C-alpha cells in the first residue's frame, strides 16, 4: 500500500481549505448583522448590541431571545424611538462559543460603542464576558433564568433566579405530594447551585432531599438514573437538567414507566419540550417559570397581545420562550430608564434603572408575565410574577399557581446594595446556608 504517505503540500492544502471553511462560517454569522448605518453620530441614535446564539449548542433557546429583542426594538422605533432617537441595532451570532462572545463583546464596546448590551444564554457565557463588561463599565443586561447571586454594578440580571423559580414550584409540590425530594441536575455551576437551592428551600418548607445526582451534559442514557430514583422512591423529583442531550431523560422516564411528579426550573419554558416530544413524555411535569407562551395573562394571550405580535413578525417561529419575554420587557425597561435620565450616558442610565423602574398594565404590552414587573434597584434583579405551569398526558399546559416573588437572596441574605457599594461579585448559597453544604 503506497497511498499512506502524505506529502507536506497535501497536508497544508487540506489544512488551508479547512481554515478557509472555518472563516467562511464566521463571516456567515456577521452577514446576519442587523447594523444599518454607522455614519450617524452617537447622539442621534441609541446603539444597542444584541449577542444571542442563533447557531451552535444553544440555538434552540437563543434564537427566540434574539427575535424578541428585535420585536421590542422594532416596536419602539415604530412608536418614535427612545426620547425621539431611533435605535440602531448591532446583532451578531456568537454561535454558542464563549471565546467568540469575548471577542464580540470587546467589538461591541470598543468599535461599535454601544449604549447598552444584551448578551448570552448560559451562566458560563456570562462569567466569560463579565470581566470585560466590568472593566469597561458597560451597561449589560443578562436575561436568562439563572442560579442567582450576581451583585454587579454594571450587570442587570433581569431573568428569574433559582430561588424565585424553585421558590414557587417546590412549595407547591411539597403541599400536593409530600416531603421526600430527589434532585437530578446538570453537572456544572448552574446545576450544582440550583441543587443547593433545592436543599435550602426543602429546609424552609419542612421537606427533605433524600438523594441527588449530577449528570454530565454529554450524557443521554438515563437507565441508571431512573433506577436510582425508583430505589429512593421520592414523593417528587426536582429536575434541573440542561441541554439537548438531557431532554432524552423525559422520553426515557416515560417509556420506563416512571410516573413520579417532577418539578423543574429548566424544562418546557425554555426548550418547549412539551411541543417537541411525543406525549406523554412531559406528563405530570411542573415548571416554575416567570413566563412561557401559555401564561394566561391578558397582555400575553389577548388579540394583539405579546404572542400575537411575536408570531405576526415571525410566523415560522416554533415557540415563544421564557427568556424571549425577558429580552422583550428589559428593552422597554431600558427605554423607560433612558427617558427618565434624559441622556444616553451610561452612569446616569444605571442610576435611573436603580431608582426602581416598574412596568405595569398601563404600559402594556411591556409586561406579558403579570400585572406589574418591577426592577429592584439595590440588587439589579427583578421582582417577577412567577407561575407553576403543569403539563398533562396530552401535553396541554395549564397554570396551577401564581404569585409575585421578589429576589430574596441578594436583598435579604447577602445585603447587596449596588447604589451604595459598587461591586462585581457573584455570591453562592453555600456561603450563607448550612443546609446547602
Amino acid at each position: 500500500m503506497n497511498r499512506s504517505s502524505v506529502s507536506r503540500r497535501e497536508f497544508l492544502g487540506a489544512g488551508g481549505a479547512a481554515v478557509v471553511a472555518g472563516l467562511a462560517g464566521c463571516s456567515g454569522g456577521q452577514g446576519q448583522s442587523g447594523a444599518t448605518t454607522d455614519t450617524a453620530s452617537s447622539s442621534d441614535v441609541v446603539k444597542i448590541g444584541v449577542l444571542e446564539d442563533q447557531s451552535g449548542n444553544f440555538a434552540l433557546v437563543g434564537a427566540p431571545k434574539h427575535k424578541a429583542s428585535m420585536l421590542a426594538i422594532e416596536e419602539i422605533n415604530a412608536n418614535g424611538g427612545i426620547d425621539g432617537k431611533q435605535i440602531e441595532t448591532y446583532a451578531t451570532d456568537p454561535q454558542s462559543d464563549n471565546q467568540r462572545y469575548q471577542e464580540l463583546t470587546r467589538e461591541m464596546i470598543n468599535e461599535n460603542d454601544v449604549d447598552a448590551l444584551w448578551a448570552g444564554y448560559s451562566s458560563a457565557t456570562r462569567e466569560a464576558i463579565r470581566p470585560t463588561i466590568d472593566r469597561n463599565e458597560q451597561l449589560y443586561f443578562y436575561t436568562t433564568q439563572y442560579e442567582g447571586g450576581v451583585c454587579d454594578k454594571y450587570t442587570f440580571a433581569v431573568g428569574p433566579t433559582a430561588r424565585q423559580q424553585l421558590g414557587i414550584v417546590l412549595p407547591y409540590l411539597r403541599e400536593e405530594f409530600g416531603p421526600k425530594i430527589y434532585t437530578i441536575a446538570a453537572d456544572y455551576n448552574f446545576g450544582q447551585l440550583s441543587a443547593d437551592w433545592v436543599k435550602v428551600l426543602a429546609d424552609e418548607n419542612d421537606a427533605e432531599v433524600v438523594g441527588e445526582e449530577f449528570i454530565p451534559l454529554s450524557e443521554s442514557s438515563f437507565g441508571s438514573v431512573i433506577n436510582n430514583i425508583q430505589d429512593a422512591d421520592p414523593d417528587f423529583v426536582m429536575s434541573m437538567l440542561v441541554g439537548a442531550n438531557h431532554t432524552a431523560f423525559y422520553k426515557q422516564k416515560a417509556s420506563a414507566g416512571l410516573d413520579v411528579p417532577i418539578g423543574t426550573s429548566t424544562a418546557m419554558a425554555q426548550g418547549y419540550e412539551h411541543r417537541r416530544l411525543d406525549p406523554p413524555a412531559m406528563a405530570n411535569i411542573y415548571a416554575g417559570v416567570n413566563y412561557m407562551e401559555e401564561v394566561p395573562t391578558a397582555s400575553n394571550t389577548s388579540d394583539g397581545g405579546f404572542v400575537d405580535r411575536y408570531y405576526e413578525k415571525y410566523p415560522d417561529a416554533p415557540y415563544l420562550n421564557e427568556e424571549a419575554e425577558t429580552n422583550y420587557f428589559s428593552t422597554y425597561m431600558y427605554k423607560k430608564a433612558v427617558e427618565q435620565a434624559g441622556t444616553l450616558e451610561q452612569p446616569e442610565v444605571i442610576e435611573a434603572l436603580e431608582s426602581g423602574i416598574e412596568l405595569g398594565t398601563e404600559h402594556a404590552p411591556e409586561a406579558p408575565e403579570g400585572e406589574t414587573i418591577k426592577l429592584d434597584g439595590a440588587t439589579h434583579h427583578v421582582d417577577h410574577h412567577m407561575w407553576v405551569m403543569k403539563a398533562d398526558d396530552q401535553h396541554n399546559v395549564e397554570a396551577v399557581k401564581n404569585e409575585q416573588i421578589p429576589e430574596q437572596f441578594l436583598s435579604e441574605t447577602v445585603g447587596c446594595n449596588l447604589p451604595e457599594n459598587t461591586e462585581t461579585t457573584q455570591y453562592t448559597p453555600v456561603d450563607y446556608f448550612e443546609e446547602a453544604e
Partner: protein
Amino acid sequence: MVNGINLALQFLDSFAFIVLAAAGLAIIFGIMGVINLAHGEFILVGAYATTLSATKLGLPLAAAMLVGTLVTAAFGVVVERFIISGAVPNWIGQETVGRNLVEPLYDRLADSMVATFGLSLIMVQGARVVFGNSIDTVGTPFGNIAYGAFSYSTYRIVLSGVSIALLVGVYYIFTKTEYGMTARATIQDEETARALGVDTERIYMATFAIGSGLAGLTGALFAPTLSMQPTLGDQFLVEAFVAVVVGGPSVVLGTALSGGVLGAIQAVFTNLYGTFFGRIALLAAAMVALRFLPDGITGFIEAVQSRRQEGQ
C-alpha cells in the same frame, strides 16, 4: 445498593450503545483507512430520515427505520463518490480540462479527518438551516418491564438484542460472502487484489455504503429515545472512537470485545457511583487499554497468537 437485574440491564444498555455507536465507524476505518469525523452526522441523517418519515409520511416505525438506514447508505455512496474517492469531480475534470482534479482520500488519515470534519460542520449547519433547531420526535415503543420497585424501558433491552444481531450479520458478511472475501483481500494487499481482478473501487464504495448504512441504522434505532436536534450525533462520538481504538484492527471482533469490556466497566461504575463516575471509568479504561495494549484488544490477541505459533 447493587441490584442484580439493574446491573444486568445497565450492562446491556451500555453494550448496545457502544456497539451501535461504533459499528459504522469501525468498518470504514478498518477497511478503508478513512477516519470519518462526520460519523455523528451520518447518525443524524439516519435519525432525521427515520423521524421525518414517521411523522410526516406516516410510515410505521419499523418501515421508517428501514428508510432511515437506506437513505443514509445512499447518502454514504454520494459522499464516497464526491469526496472520498473523488470519482465524480475527476470525471467532470476529465470531461472539461482533461485531467483528474482530486486524489482519493483512502489511507490518508490526516486528510480524511480534515475533509470529513468540514463535511460534519456543513451537515450540522445544513440541518439547522433546512429543518430548524429541532424537529418533533416519535415516541418510544413497547412500554416497560417492571420488577419489584423498578422498571426498565423494554425498547432499550430490544436494542441490545439488535446490537448482537448486527454483529453477527456483519461477521457473516465479511467472512461468508464473496463481497466479504474480496473486501478482506483488498485490505490485506490492494494491488495484488486488483491484479487478480478485484474491482477495488467498487469494494471501497460498497464498504462506505455499508458503514454509512450502519451509522444510519444507529440513528434510526436511537431516534425514538433521543431529542431530535442537529447536534445529536455528538453524543455518540466519544463511545464510538473509544470503542474503535480499544477494539483494534479486527473490525467485528474488536467492536464486540470493546463493547463488552467497556460496557461492563461503565455499567458497574454507573450502577455503584452514578452516571458521572460511569463516564470517568469508561475513559480511564480506554487510557489504560491504550497504554498497555497499543494495538487494541484484537491487536493484543493477534500478537499472542503469532508468538505462540513462533514458539511451536
